[in-house]
């Protein structure tokens, strides 16, 4: 075991986080600038500043202003929100479950949230107004989180096989129920159902941004406070408790906050899989597993990944648009295989 390749060079957070922030800014400018109508980065900046009341000397047309402000900017913002929510939720779940494979999609939380969302559409619920759908996505996410947690956890530990099988079972049940709902749904509702199951940012408007932003931003602001506790969770729940973490309380808080973020993300974008798996893994490879760096880095990295994936989704087959979830799945599937092979090489596979 010991001896070889044990000291890994790591990029410290103080370097990585600014780099990721730069990447996100670049991705944002690309996301706004690239499309059927091209808009130069300086024009993008000028338009955004103009809406903040600052005028700079760069020329742009009224049409460009409309495209940036009404179409692309809300979409980019939504991508950032969804990506950071999924990236951070993945990192939190993996730390809490002490398990590198915990991902909101893989363990069934996303599909539970999608089931909630589809259910509210197909059954025509609207008693909470515009908040109905996010609320149902949230409840679906919380119920599946708790179910996964209760089933997969045993004696303070979560076996990887049990976790994945639980995820498969929950995904199957959610998928079946979603399928059932498509029978009672109208054509219009059916389109929405398909939208959720594939994942897309195509419906982004300032209204959808406004619906998801409060939940996700609240989650992003709260999550860093658990960074130290999550590090200790990785030692084991009992050990975390011995070191002063109120594990019962922290566990519930983390489940609720990740369900809130995942639920909000799924409500506006459908099931965008693998972001919560890919991003934390890449960040850990670069910067190590310390959650104090990992959590903010996953927020920035997840935002960039979804932003660029969405850019690909709407430009690859232009003028047609691919579903975002398809793009992330095409990236994530092979990534998972590589991850599995690497782990098998390193430690003989996941126990």
């Amino acid at each position, binding site marked *: *075991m*010991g001896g070889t*390749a*044990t*000291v*890994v060079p790591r990029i410290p957070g103080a370097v990585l986080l600014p780099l990721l922030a730069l990447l996100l800014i670049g991705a944002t400018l690309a996301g706004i600038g690239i499309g059927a109508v091209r808009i130069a980065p300086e024009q993008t900046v000028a338009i955004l500043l103009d809406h903040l009341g600052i005028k700079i000397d760069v020329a742009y047309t009224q049409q460009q202003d409309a495209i940036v402000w009404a179409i692309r900017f809300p979409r980019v913002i939504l991508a950032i929100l969804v990506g950071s929510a999924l990236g951070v939720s993945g990192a939190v779940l993996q*730390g809490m479950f*002490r*398990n*590198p494979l915990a991902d909101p999609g893989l363990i069934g939380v996303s599909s539970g949230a999608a089931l909630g969302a589809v259910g509210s559409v197909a059954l025509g619920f609207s008693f909470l107004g515009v908040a109905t759908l996010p609320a149902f996505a949230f409840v679906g996410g919380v119920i599946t989180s708790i179910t996964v947690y209760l089933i997969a956890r045993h004696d303070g530990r979560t076996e990887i096989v049990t976790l994945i099988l639980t995820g498969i079972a929950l995904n199957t049940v959610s998928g079946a129920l979603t399928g059932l709902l498509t029978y009672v749904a109208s054509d219009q509702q059916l389109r929405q159902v398909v939208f959720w199951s594939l994942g897309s940012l195509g419906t982004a408007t300032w209204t959808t941004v406004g619906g998801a932003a409060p939940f996700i931003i609240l989650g992003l602001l709260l999550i860093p406070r658990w960074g*130290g*506790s999550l*590090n*200790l969770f*990785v*030692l*084991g729940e*009992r*050990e*975390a*408790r*011995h*070191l*002063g*973490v*109120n*594990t019962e309380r922290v566990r519930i808080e983390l489940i609720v906050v990740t369900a809130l973020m995942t639920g909000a993300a799924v409500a506006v974008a459908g099931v965008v899989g693998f972001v919560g798996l890919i991003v934390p893994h890449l960040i*850990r490879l670069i910067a*190590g*597993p*310390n959650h*104090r760096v990992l959590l903010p880095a996953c927020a920035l990295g997840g935002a960039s990944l979804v932003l660029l994936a969405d850019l690909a989704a709407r430009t690859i087959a232009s003028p047609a648009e691919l579903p975002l979830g398809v793009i992330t799945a095409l990236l994530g599937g092979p990534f998972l295989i590589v991850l599995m092979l690497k782990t098998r090489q390193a*430690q003989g596979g996941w126990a």
Partner: protein
Amino acid sequence: MPSSLIAEGVSLSIRSRWLLREVSFSVEPGEVIALVGPNGAGKSTMLRALAGDLTLTNGRVVLDGRNIDQYPPRDLALKRAVLPQQTVLQFAFSVREVVEMGRGPRHIIDNDGVVDASLRRTDSYDIADRIYPSLSGGEQARVTLSRVLAQQTPILLLDEPTASLDLHHQQMVMEVARELAMAGASVVVILHDLNLAATYADRIGIMREGRLVTIGTPWETCTEALLTEVFECEIAVAQHPIRDCPLVIPMAKSADIRMDVERIAGAAGRNGAR
């Protein structure tokens, strides 16, 4: 500041099986107590009870005058540290990061040198930058001990700290336990090696089937009759050739080794007759 820890009639029943029955003893500041006993005797369960992990069926554990289950986790973490039998990490934390975890969830920068000192104390300083999951079992055990030391508590509960260690490091761990006790800490340590217990412990508690059969000084507890009965194998006890403590010698059962024993005993007899 020294702390006192008292078990009063601690009993635990799970699915109508008694894992602990009426265990009572106190752990005084400045002493090392070794818990010994056969597998399944309830040693680890007792340690967990002392750590405040369990909801007892009967009895209570009193820490500094207060029932241990009344302490919030954060206060308890300032009083007692627990060394688990094994810590498996799925993530590539470095050795230093693992030891820093001993400083608690709010710790960020090691500005008082506690982490360095804890690493040095277990011969782990040189591997501080290595990745914990890549270490050997013995190295991991030493790093985990460093983590426990970094917690700087007046009470230390160690579950088989010597299990995967070589002789040198077994000795090192027990020396650390003694030093801590000399500085006023209370140490409860589960051991399988009765000679380590007899050498380093002030008192030895012998457990069997959930009961504390006896607790006392090594000379009081390590008697041939009691050890032979509790461990269900023939055990001889002699005077340690160098130290003032018992030397515990498990006797062999296999016929061939047995013959050696009898031959030597016979030879000794002849010598005596001459």
